[in-house]
């Protein structure tokens, strides 16, 4: 006879005392985005770092305006501009050490360039001559990723693998506010926390996922709060304050490097341009909102700090502007040349070894191209290579 079948014999035993598995308090983000520029704490900042950030921001902005101009000239298929978000883009690259990895999204070409990638190679995807225009190993920059949030588990896996091998490598993965709604975001954060993987997740909350505002994306107090549910710290930072983003990311990198596990950083910023050049932002937002954010421009914020503390004068600013112009002129010139295309590349990298079927299809295309070349010599691209 079981206990339940004996009337009156059942004595409830109290369950074991419940304990929270981790204390959530230290994981919680600050109630306000962390700021440095314009505060007293800014006085302690390294002037050299500030000047370096400033130069990168000015160049980053110029890169964005130049790339946008290239879409108008038909030199880029599309460009998702990070204008207004340069502080995040630049800081994400600068906090990395040589051996670390960056996992950018389609909006983060600038971060890749700030990491050291050749600007033209970084734009290959958006020019449309190939998908990834660089060897990811060269600068340890994963391919610019378009399917939202899918790069995040990759960052976790890479960081995990590096740690298993005993290597000192941290992965920094970038994603947008909209991307945090995808299942892969959840799965990546959960894996990272369970494995205590050396990863930093940087969410650029730029207010919109194409047309959809954050309010329709999440009911969380902030995106940084999501970290708590996974058992990792969440940090909220003013994404237009380059010094603050740099500091918060550096701390997260340090934690990851020293075995302290992952961090989720939400940088609050704003997408000044439309989603891409193909988007019409007037359908879903007002100019007033954009103007408010323009007043909180990352370059202006840093410039104010630097000039206020006499760390930068007009000549210094001019020098940075000229460096930016040189970069833009070089980009313009190189992007105005038609890329060398070889249609046969379509078949080259599908497999390590071409299948019989692909060889056959490649032969067919080659014959087509040769026949076309015969009809109108010089009009077929790729025959010269």
């Amino acid at each position: 006879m079981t206990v339940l079948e004996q009337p009156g014999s059942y004595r409830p035993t109290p369950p074991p005392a419940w304990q929270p598995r981790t204390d959530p308090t230290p994981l919680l983000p600050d109630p306000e985005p962390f700021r440095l520029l314009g505060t007293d704490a800014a006085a302690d900042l390294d002037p050299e770092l500030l000047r370096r950030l400033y130069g990168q921001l000015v160049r980053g902005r110029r890169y964005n305006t130049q790339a946008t101009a290239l879409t108008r000239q038909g030199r880029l298929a599309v460009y998702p501009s990070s204008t207004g978000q340069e502080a995040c883009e630049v800081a994400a690259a600068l906090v990395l050490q040589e051996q670390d990895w960056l996992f950018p999204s389609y909006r983060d070409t600038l971060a890749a360039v700030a990491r050291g990638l050749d600007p033209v190679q970084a734009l290959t995807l958006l020019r449309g001559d190939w998908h990834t225009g660089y060897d990811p190993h060269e600068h340890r920059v994963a391919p610019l990723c378009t399917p939202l949030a899918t790069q995040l588990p990759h960052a976790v896996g890479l960081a995990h693998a590096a740690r298993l091998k005993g290597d000192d490598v941290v992965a920094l993965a970038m994603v947008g506010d909209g991307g945090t709604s995808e299942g892969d975001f959840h799965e990546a954060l959960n894996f990272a926390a369970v494995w205590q993987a050396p990863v930093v997740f940087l969410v650029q909350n730029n207010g919109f996922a194409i047309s959809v505002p954050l309010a329709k994306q999440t009911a969380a107090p902030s995106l940084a709060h999501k970290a708590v549910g996974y058992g990792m710290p969440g940090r909220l930072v003013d994404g237009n304050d380059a010094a603050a983003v740099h500091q918060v990311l550096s701390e997260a990198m340090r934690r990851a490097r020293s075995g302290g596990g992952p961090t989720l950083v939400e940088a609050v910023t704003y997408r000044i341009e439309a989603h891409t050049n193909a988007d019409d932002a007037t359908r879903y937002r007002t100019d007033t909102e954009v103007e408010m954010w323009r007043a909180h421009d990352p370059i202006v914020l840093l410039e104010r700090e630097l000039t206020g503390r006499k760390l930068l004068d007009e000549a210094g600013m001019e020098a940075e502007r000229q460096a930016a112009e040189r970069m833009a002129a070089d980009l313009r010139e190189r992007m105005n040349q038609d890329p060398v295309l070889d249609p046969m590349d379509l078949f080259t990298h599908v497999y390590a070894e071409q299948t019989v079927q692909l060889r056959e299809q490649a032969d067919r295309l080659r014959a087509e191209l040769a026949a076309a070349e015969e009809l109108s010599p010089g009009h077929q691209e790729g025959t010269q290579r």
Partner: protein
Amino acid sequence: MTAAAVDTARKPVSMAQALGRALRDAMADDPAVHVLGEDVGALGGVFRVTDGLAKEFGEDRCTDTPLAEAGILGAAVGMAMYGLRPVVEMQFDAFAYPAFEQLISHVSRMRNRTRGAMPMPITVRVPYGGGIGGVEHHSDSSEAYYMATPGLHVVAPATVADAYGLLRAAIASDDPVIFLEPKRLYWSKADWSPDRPEQVPGIGSAVVRRAGTSATLITYGPSLPVCLEAAQAATAEGWDLEVVDLRSLVPFDEETVCASVRRTGRAVVVHESTGFGGPGGEIAARITERCFHHLEAPVLRVAGFDIPYPPPMLERHHLPGVDRVLDAVARLQWESEWTAGSERGTR
């Protein structure tokens, strides 16, 4: 129809507009019809197909969801369980992949699993195919994945009238329908009357778009205009080609296809999707099984190469064009026919 007088005049209407009109009319006719997806509200969808729906029917009927395709389709399953008729928009072909778990494990088999008690009247609209200069992940032809999943209907309109008529039929269907919208044709226009849309055959019926006697081109979606152009060009070579627009891959209209092939004795299947494991293989096999003794030549396929979809600057080399179609037609063993003295396919 509301306020305004019925306007029966035919005027140039784009496929995107006709699709939008179909959604609007379906929502007006049936309060159970709900549209959900990414950017379908204020923006009207990235292709503007849902333009005006949120305004007219409210955000509960046309909803900008959080950005999660598995969530969108999973929620649609629940909504359908409770008697609604969700129409889901996937923003692009390749962005439907996160929803495959819901699609394959639930949407496609719920009716079967519940012995008919719980049908899934869900329409999944998928802008698909290439030719628009889209970067990576914006140009996939994913129909073979859907076709390989029993329980799903797979529909692909190629004309403005079909865009409207087939979408209405898809929404009215009590089975899940993958509705493949050829992106390349979104802006193509035809004279059409929005207030008195013409009746079109339902899901599962193919249509002969051009009658001919020499050979049959079998196609659907974005490749229909290519085939019609090829048929036009072929007249110069003395070929009179028939063009069959499948309109629906599942169910597959074997009757129309086989009747045509039996008449012409030759067939070429044309699609953008890869050839290996693509829809053409199934279609060719079926024709061979059923029309073998009427065939004068093997059924040929003109398809995209078996490669990941190329970047924009190279996509024209990948997409089946008029020349490749004509080249396939030329390979349909015309010589052997002359020796056989057949009356068909006179050249």
